[in-house]
């Protein structure tokens, strides 16, 4: 019985694969030669296989193609995927770099920006004295970050001229499509 349990997991796959003489099934085949219960189980699985392969398809309703095409008529296809132009990705990249730097250089009261990967005693060429009041310090830092953000977003959107609608539409489509994919993945 213990032997039967051990082989049970492989049995359905073995039968579905057409009972091939493969090395991976050698132990199972030896077991089947001596175990009547497992042979009966294999026989039942064989009948399940036959029934499943004969599982009929429902005929599609008549006129479905025409009805579907009529439904499609009012629909507009999405824009094809295109790589983002440099005028969008370059400012976005600079924005990311600015944000990363702002996070890494988070201030400590009374000190110049701390660079985490440097030894604490390392001298920084640009070390300056910052206000001791933590509230003022944080206000300066957050204000700086907002300015960097604002500059990056403005660069990304304006590019020194009016926003290019096609690029923005494209960006919006990409974002909405990515959000939908993530949503579907999360739904699973």
């Amino acid at each position, binding site marked *: 019985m213990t032997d039967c349990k051990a082989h049970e997991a492989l049995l359905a*796959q073995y039968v579905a694969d057409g009972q091939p003489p493969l090395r991976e099934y050698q132990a199972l085949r030896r077991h089947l030669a001596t175990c009547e219960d497992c042979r009966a189980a294999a026989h039942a*699985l064989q009948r399940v296989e*036959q029934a499943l392969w004969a599982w009929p398809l*429902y005929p599609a309703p008549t006129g479905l*193609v025409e009805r579907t*095409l009529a*439904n499609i008529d009012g629909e507009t*296809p*999405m824009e094809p995927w295109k790589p983002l132009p440099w005028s969008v990705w370059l400012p976005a990249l600079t924005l990311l770099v600015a944000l990363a730097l702002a996070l890494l250089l988070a201030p400590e009261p009374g000190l110049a920006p701390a660079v985490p990967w440097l030894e604490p005693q390392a001298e920084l060429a640009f070390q300056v004295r910052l206000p001791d009041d933590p509230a003022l310090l944080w206000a300066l830092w957050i204000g700086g970050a907002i300015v960097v953000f604002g500059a990056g977003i403005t660069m990304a959107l304006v590019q020194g001229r009016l926003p290019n609608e096609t690029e923005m539409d494209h960006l919006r489509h990409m974002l909405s499509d990515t959000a939908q994919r993530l949503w579907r993945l999360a739904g699973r």
Partner: protein
Amino acid sequence: MALESWTASLSDPLADLVSRAQRGDRAALGELIAQTQGRVYNLAYRILGNPQEAEDLTQEVYVRVWRALPRFRGESKFTTWLHTVATNACLNRKRKLRRQLDAQLDAGERLEEIAAPEEGPAQEALHHDEHARLWELVERLPDKYRLVLALFYQQQLSYQEIAQVLALPLGTVKAHLNRARNALAANMKKVGIR
């Protein structure tokens, strides 16, 4: 990625129709739908268990496919992509129907009145046949098992393609199939199919 796309287009018999449909060829789109609608309709019927729902969903799937067709880059076979869209749509619709059913049940309706199984022509003709009785057992399996069985045996997708459609590891797909096969064999015995 480019190599994948190239090999997929070589092995995809629908690649030419897809490419023409992407360029706005309506006849090619009609042909594409005609060649694949049976798969979508059957998958929907298997999951939703109702011909009207299956037809509505089939139309909805092709509307989605048409809208997203310009973004299909041929990295997989068209039918694999189509099955992914159809499977997601089926499961979403099923969830919605289940919520509606729950609300109706809460309102005091009886389960048999709402969920009476409908029989297709094949089932009616073969009602007393052993295979037909086994197909009835399949209808009682949980959705995830019925889905993998339909994709493997009816839609004839490979294990790899099913894994891609359902975004599951290959081993999980095989395990689902084997559990479904074992459950059917056990149920067959229980209901006296000898």
